[in-house]
């Protein structure tokens, strides 16, 4: 079922919001203009509320001793154990085959952010 969440102007790049649909808490994040993702607001590891954690970038893989920061506005980080997940795929950064965040399709329609749950 589709639900209208809010106007696209209400969530800017780098920001996050929580909505509750069908009794489920859902975290909505904005990577860039028009690029919005939605995930279940519950870490697949031990169930921590992901909205209490951060949404920004991370240190990307590199050679030993080198630190490169990147993937700004792509990574959701759990407030408890620090697990990092890709907002668009739900996959864990440490291992794509480990437990994923549940994701929901989101798109823009007539300036409205629409989610399918």
């Amino acid at each position: 079922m589709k639900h209208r969440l809010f106007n696209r102007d209400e969530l800017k790049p780098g920001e996050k919001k929580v909505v509750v649909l069908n009794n489920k808490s859902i975290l909505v994040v904005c990577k860039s203009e028009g690029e919005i993702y939605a995930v279940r607001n519950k870490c697949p590891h031990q169930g921590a509320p992901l909205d209490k954690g951060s949404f920004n970038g991370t240190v990307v893989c590199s050679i030993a001793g080198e630190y490169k920061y990147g993937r700004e506005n792509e990574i959701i980080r759990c407030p408890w154990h620090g697990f990092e997940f890709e907002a668009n795929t739900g996959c864990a950064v440490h291992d794509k085959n480990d437990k994923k965040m549940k994701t929901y399709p989101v798109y823009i329609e007539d300036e409205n952010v629409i989610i399918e749950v």
Partner: protein
Amino acid sequence: MTTNTQVQNSKNEKANVKQPIIDVDVHEMLPNLKHIAKYLDQPWKRWVTDTLWGGLRQLPYVQHLDGGVERVDAKPGDGRPAGSDYVLMKQQLLDEYNVEHAILTGLFYPSTMRAQFEFGTALASAYNDYQIKEWLEKDSRFKGSVHINCHEPEKAAYEIDRVGQHPQMVQVLLPIGDFAYGDPRFHPIFEAAQRNGLHIAMHQSTRTTTALDNGYPRYFIEWHSLLPQAFMSQVVSLVCNGVFEKFPNLKCILLEGGFVWIPALMWRLDHNYKSLRREVPWLKRMPSQVIREHFHAATQPIEQPDPKEMLQMVEMIGNDKFLLFATDYPHWDFDDPNTSLPTTFSKELKRKILYDNAKELYGFK
């Protein structure tokens, strides 16, 4: 069909745990360093209030998670550390998870000091008074740990006698450092603990070291992953120095060192005992038997391998009373009682770990 939706505040949707739990590792914190001065006499009070004393030993690492050493959502938000606010702890832990008893372990460990041990002994005593007045007396669900400065063992024994009879005190807290607690110089501590009907709990500390390079490897992930080394060392030290032969009523609870290494250590110790027994003739039982009968381990931080393999590790310990559940609230590697235990653990085993084992060990009514 599209519906309009109001943006709402998120809410933790975990179902309430009906099973009451006993949490054996909860970290109450001082609101700030100078607060301890309230419980110190002179000259120590001025050492805290009038100098640039920066507190006890720190780790040489940045704990680089978003909340540092703390769960992000456990911070009170006013600059005080997570774990310093009773109301928040009550809400996020005691009431949230139906905690029947929470054993306080603090994080203020004078035994990590390398000098000025008289000051350390005074700090330990002051901390016990703080713990009693501002935590134990606030909520009967709390149980306490007697803190000491282990580097003055005779005075530590005196401190255990001083506060050990408080009805909510259940154990003596020994921070794990680069010194072996089995050494006879520490035995007055065990004697006093047994005399007062208290157990011993060992917790990792900023002075817990690993095997290489002055004890602190290059990265925090290395240090944190290697903590079991130090726990293994202490278990071996206590067993081989005959602590439990001298003090047969004593039990030792291992906090935050994990437990999956226990079977392998038992095997190796037993193997060596068969050849080398005459070096430690006071050890009259197989080391594995001593470990099973006198040690317990907190589950946190519980690893999450294949659940079948985790069950096998627990079965290899050979004592279903061995494990005690801990959350380690309010730290970043907190374990949730609803979701952290493997699915392969039976309802009975979970109940033992979450509640029965600690209740029996500590004699809670």
